[in-house]
């Protein structure tokens, strides 16, 4: 295989590992700040996966919104609720064994479906000018969801301020 195809394959394994390791830290860390940092690592890994899948616009939007905004929100909440001063005790509640069992069963089910189905893959030729197309489609074909989302964001803005106010 050619050199850049080989590099793309290597890149997939690397960013996939980063995403999974970050998620593992996020879910099992006892200190909630370490969990938030693991989540940030996982976000960056997922952005890497988008770059490998040739959806660069979405990769950059992922970094901008998830790492730049949502991660900052989570860190603020961690700090404002002083979750760290609470300290010790297990990270899990009383039903963790049932949760682990269900997660494992679901993973096996999804794995069997993912690996066993014969998907009729028709790889697309990703052109260079996806962004003007995305803009046009947002304004024509997907106008209704777009406007609904803006209304949703307005409601969230007002609601978050009202809920978190002193």
């Amino acid at each position, binding site marked *: 295989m050619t050199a*850049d195809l080989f590099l793309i394959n290597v890149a997939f394994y690397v960013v996939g590992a980063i995403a999974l390791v970050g998620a593992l830290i996020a879910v099992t860390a006892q200190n909630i700040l370490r969990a938030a940092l693991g989540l940030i690592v996982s976000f960056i890994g997922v952005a890497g996966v988008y770059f490998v899948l040739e959806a*660069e616009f979405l990769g950059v939007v992922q970094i901008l919104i998830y790492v730049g905004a949502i991660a900052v929100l989570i860190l603020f909440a961690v700090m404002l609720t002083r979750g760290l001063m609470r300290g010790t005790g297990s990270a899990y509640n009383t039903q963790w064994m049932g949760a682990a069992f269900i997660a494992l069963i679901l993973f096996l089910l999804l794995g069997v479906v993912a690996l066993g189905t014969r998907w009729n893959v028709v790889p697309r030729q990703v052109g260079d000018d996806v962004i003007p197309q995305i803009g046009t489609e947002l304004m024509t074909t997907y106008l209704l969801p777009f406007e609904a989302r803006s209304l949703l964001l307005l409601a969230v803005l007002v609601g978050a301020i009202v809920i978190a106010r002193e």
Partner: protein
Amino acid sequence: MDILNSLFTNLYDWLAATIHSLLAGLGLTKDAESAIVAAIMGLIVVTVILLWMVLMVLILIWLERKNAARVQDRVGPNRVGPWGLLQPVADTVKMFIKEDIIPTNADKLVHTLAPIVTMAPAVLAFAVIPWGKGMFPADLNIGVLWVVAVGSIGTLGIFMAGYGSNNKFSLLGGMRGVAQAVSYEIPQVLTIVTIVLMTGTMSLVKIVESQGGWGGLQWYIFAFPVGPIAFVVFYLSSLAEVNRTPFDIPEGESEIVAGHHTEYSGMKWGLFYLAEYFNFFLVCCLGAILFFGGWQGPGFLPGYVWFILKVYFLIWVGMWIRMTWPRFRVDQLMGFAWKVLVPIALLNILLAGLRFDLFSLLRMMGLIS
């Protein structure tokens, strides 16, 4: 003049050809050979840009201290070399040899990671800046969005520094810093969107190339009324983004000791200091590219010289502002962002979308292409 213009691109091509011929005798396949050449050339480009940036930052440090001195009617550093030119080198040596202190109950991991998380995005964003005709490391077709996204990771570093120092002043400084950075990102991105609207592409290389008319002077700052308003809003919100006076509440020395980098010393503090100057240089580069035409200019100087001149002009204006304006209070700062800059930026986008600017008028009248 063409030779000077394409000096660096010719150098790059010659170096690539030399490495190709050096590898030709090893009998590798064509794919592997071009991959190795691409990797080596990439490493060389990255090293050159990093060294160049460090040189620029050293010059900036000297310039700032001399400028501040002259504005305050004193001489400035003049002991260490002719005109104090080796002062930044002395500062660097001092930074290296200082002891590295971590406060007692601080979270070691967070405290150590914070300067890295602040510095890395500042360096990453230089991957898309075009320094001259054909002189860019990577031409992403989402160039502007890349710079904004990577810049927003820097706010995490400020927060981690403020939190990880186990110090009330640091925490307060860190929270204020994050609030300020997040608030001023919005007018900055809105003005960048204005320029993207007028150009039709997010690639920085194409934005510079589209400002080439009128003998290299068709810059977006001349597109009244959209251009100058966008430039003023962009420049002020960028100054706030990089925490420079008058927006430097997070690190104001008379206010909050040193804000989020109170508890840092030695090389870690050096990384914060470097990151601030890298960010300032980046923001001035972005301003020069978006509003002043990047490397475009009348033909008597090569492109990269024009670019450096424009960037240093913007840096000088930034330093001038720092020396003369008093500092904003925190509530004035947030009020300024949300109540003044955001409405102006939104109105600007409306005007740009309605094509209410000088260039569109001239295009309609058929005077320019």
